[in-house]
């Protein structure tokens, strides 16, 4: 079930990114929905799921990207693993820690991509700072919004389940 949810989220992220690219060609520079899916998945606190999720999402991102195949795969594997380890050891299911996790994850991904570019390419293309900062900010804000939405949805689901349980007991 968790795998299916993840798959649906990944497909939705790819579809929204494809639409965003058509509407605003510069969108992929500052918007990385695939990374948000990786972080959401890793926030569950399962390092195995976080690692595999990051790896799969990274390869999907690489398919849509030019350059070497595996750059995003590597970066997102690291992000998925580290976020899941952090989520396992610390309380990150609150808005403030969550927003920090989204921002740090975006910054970490960019840092890994830049390091790989510096190591692998003779003439690496270093991204300007402003779009990078914008990407970190957008990831944090968008991540927090989706996080709050998900929390609300889960609470409603729990309320619905408990009310359904009490109705069943009454009958």
């Amino acid at each position, binding site marked *: 079930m968790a795998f299916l949810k993840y798959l649906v989220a990944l497909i939705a992220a*790819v579809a929204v990114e494809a639409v965003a*690219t058509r509407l605003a*060609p510069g969108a992929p520079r500052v918007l990385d929905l695939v990374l948000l899916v990786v972080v959401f998945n890793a926030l569950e606190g399962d390092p195995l799921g976080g690692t595999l999720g990051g790896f799969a999402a990274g390869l999907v991102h690489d398919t849509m*990207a030019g*350059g070497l195949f595996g750059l995003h795969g*590597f970066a997102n594997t690291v992000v998925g693993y580290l976020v*899941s380890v952090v989520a396992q050891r610390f309380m990150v299911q609150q808005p403030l820690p969550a927003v920090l996790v989204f921002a740090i994850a975006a910054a970490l991904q960019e840092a890994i991509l830049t390091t790989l570019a510096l190591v692998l*390419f003779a*003439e690496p293309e270093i991204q300007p700072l402003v779009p990078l900062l914008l990407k970190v900010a957008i990831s944090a804000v968008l991540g927090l919004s989706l996080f709050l939405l998900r929390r609300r949805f889960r609470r409603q689901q729990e309320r619905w389940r408990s009310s359904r349980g009490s109705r069943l007991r009454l009958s």
Partner: protein
Amino acid sequence: MRDRLAHWLVVLLLLGQLAGLAIQVPDEAWRGSLLEQATLRAVGPVLHGVATVTATIAGVGSSVRTVSSLERENAALKVRVELLEQRLLKLQGVAGEAERLARAVGYESPAGGPLRVADVVYVDHVSWLRTLVLWVDGHAAIRDQAVVVPEGLVGRVVTSAPPYAKVQLVTDRAAAVGAMIERTRRQGIVRGSGDGGLELAFLPKQAPVAVGDRVVTSGVDGVYPRGIPIGVVRTVGPGDGLFHDIEIAPAVDFGTLDHVYLLAPLATPPTPPPAEFATPAPDGSH
């Protein structure tokens, strides 16, 4: 146990990916691996679906038009057809003449196969991803197949996973195209400049070049046939060493691509350029 497995898995995955990246850098033949083809096949339908839906929505909007706008468009198209017919006649004359001259000197040009149309299902030309995903109906696209539009060169196929293909845009920093200034036939190499533009490298300072010069493919790389427009010289700087610092405005507006053409691969190896046109090596030697 599960956590331990995850620790080992992350190490394995990272080492595997590092090895995969490392072997792609020196040898491009490693690009388009089975894994990349598999993910392209998986992601392709999503991108194709999005492209189809957005095209349908755009089509609904454009189909609601007034009769007067259609009449205006029809008149403009008639004028355009007339102009193109005149140009075609001229070109047929030139082609016949070139053929006669080629026969006289025993020159055989590389066979130009039929063009195949392909739908663009994803294009990202602004961010550093710079890629194009195509949906190719019928026969599969072939690796290194040149991709063009009527305005000029788009790029080449780097991964083929039928019916999808991934294209490296000519503006990609890793792309390199054998090119020449059309006016002077001076050869150099066109590369992506990193900001969505192009630069012409290895054109010696003694070679004449001016803003507005057309740059076309030279055909020496064995991938792109000769004479495909790449762009126009935008700026010419003094450069650091032996070569000009030349910026080129691409001939193609990558933001408006909805379909492209795949050129048949070059059947014969490209003819070597005459000695007087040979590009000097970066150290200045010929």
